[in-house]
């Protein structure tokens, strides 16, 4: 009992600090979203109050949907993210399986080679990547972005997945071998289903930087047909600097899908970070 009472002030203090920081973290998002539903006048007169029936206005959203081709941008971002994610997970899991399951000459060296990309950012190779894409005619295609993001996501995916695959029971795999399953069947039918939680973690880690990236869309695929949401929003915001309703609405539209995805996957993400990301 005495211990509980002694820590009461400390508990209150902890809550106070955490709550303050939570407010700091959420405040900008909150301000942007509430103001996106207000009329221009209300945005400037009472920026901190939520919209009331009197100040409620959707003019910003109608401008955004009327002007920018956000549906197309959104579709581009979805295609790029989903396809890259698919390849990162498939190729990453295959390589991780090879590295963690088989002993062969050069195994450690191969592991180090593939881990190099965790520390050295792919952006430094941009000049040559652009030349490569120009030479192969892939500039302004979504394929270029998919290739780059697949390469970018692989090192971390292989690193995390091979840690998890080392934990899959050898007996199970050997039982499969005795039953005459091929190595491929063992990988796809036995191992992959068992590391599904780790795959989800890697998926979230890989997805966020791809969805949010501005550098490669700007350099490799800036054409109207291949713009991603991030690049589209950047250009739209640049053109509408004085139309505050439209800017706030565009920002809210860019925030909401990521926020919803995050809230769905946040438990997965946090479990992933707290289980073995730091060793």
């Amino acid at each position, binding site marked *: 009992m005495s211990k509980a009472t002694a820590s009461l002030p*400390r*508990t209150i203090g*902890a809550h106070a*600090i*955490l709550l303050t*920081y*939570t407010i*700091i*973290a959420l405040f*900008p*998002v909150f*301000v942007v979203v509430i103001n996106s539903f207000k009329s221009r006048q209300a945005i400037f007169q009472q*920026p*901190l109050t939520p919209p009331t029936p009197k100040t409620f206005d959707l003019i910003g959203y109608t401008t955004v949907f009327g002007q920018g081709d956000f549906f197309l941008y959104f579709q581009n971002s979805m295609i790029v993210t989903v396809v890259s994610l698919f390849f990162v997970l498939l*190729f990453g899991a*295959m*390589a991780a399986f090879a*590295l963690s399951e*088989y002993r062969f000459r050069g195994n450690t060296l191969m592991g180090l080679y*593939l881990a*190099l*990309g965790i*520390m*050295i*950012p792919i*952006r*430094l*190779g*941009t*000049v*040559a990547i652009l*030349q*490569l894409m120009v030479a192969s005619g892939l500039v302004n295609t979504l394929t270029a972005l998919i290739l*780059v993001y*697949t*390469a*970018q996501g*692989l090192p971390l995916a292989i690193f995390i997945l091979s840690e998890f695959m080392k934990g899959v029971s050898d007996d199970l795999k050997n039982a499969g*071998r005795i039953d005459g399953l091929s*190595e*491929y069947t063992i990988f796809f039918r036995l191992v992959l289903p068992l590391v599904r939680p780790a795959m989800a973690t890697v998926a979230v880690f890989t997805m*966020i930087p791809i969805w*949010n*990236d*501005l*550098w490669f869309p700007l350099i490799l695929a800036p054409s109207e047909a291949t713009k991603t949401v*991030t690049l589209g*929003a950047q250009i739209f*915001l640049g053109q509408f600097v004085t139309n505050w309703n439209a*800017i706030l609405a565009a920002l809210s539209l*860019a*925030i909401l899908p*990521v*926020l919803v995805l*995050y*809230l769905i996957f*946040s438990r997965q993400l*946090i479990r992933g970070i707290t289980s073995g*990301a*730091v060793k």
Partner: protein
Amino acid sequence: MAAASNKPFRWHIGVFLAPAVLVYTAIMILPLFGTLQLSLFRSVEQVQTFVGLANFRTLFGDPNWSFNFWNALKNNVWFFIIHMVVQNPIGVMLAALLSSPKLRFTAFYRTAIFIPTILSFVIVGFAWKLILSPIWGVAPDLMWLVGLKSLFTPWLGKEQYALTALSLISVWQFVGIPMMLIYAALLSIPEEVIEAAECDGITGWSQFWKIKLPLILPAIGIISILTFVGNFNAFDLIYTAQGALAGPNYSTDILGTFLYRAFFGFQLQVGDPNMGATIATMMFLIILIGVCFYLFLVQRRLRRYQF
């Protein structure tokens, strides 16, 4: 099984490794070396000609280039220092609070504080630009509430404050990462260690400083190197908030924006892939030095405890 290992060549290993190795090598490793190589060439009448270190001589010798380079590097170092002294201590503090036993609502705090990290730079840059804008008045209003209105200036527009303001915005965005990693490290400290400390009468703050902090030092080391690589590779936030010219008057120019301008050109300046490659090579060397410093000097001295 014995038969499997007696086979001269196990094709499946190659099949499993090939796709990842091919994509990684073709899109990441070769272009990286290609870029390093391009920094030794120059385009003379549309033909790439080997010029040795001439590009580096231009970068360091030509007053225009060298001024911009040292300016960007200096700004980048300041950007990194702010992250190290603001972001990481705040992250450690939040993690320490979150890991205190029997505290309620920790899942809520964790989820909420991590939200800025998942947002794109475009959103973060613009949202803060609006909030700090003197036209809108959200920031002056808030400062008026706490009686500090006289201190308000348009931070992003003033040369002496803009870089620090942007660094703090970046800190705001990324504080979730050190928080999560340290939180994970704190959770992995076994109960017995903490109980033993409590038996010896070490509780509260002194427990944190004397017992927990030494145990999470390796995690802090990892965070520092991640921060270093991330900061010296940063581009998006500055580009969205201040444009490629990294205004006002290049005061927020960091290596990433400098590389972008050199490579693509901007306004009056003509883009030059070879100079772009030269700057990328310098960034590569800086990051390499940082990573080696960490791997060979810092990481080896950090004592790891096995439980």
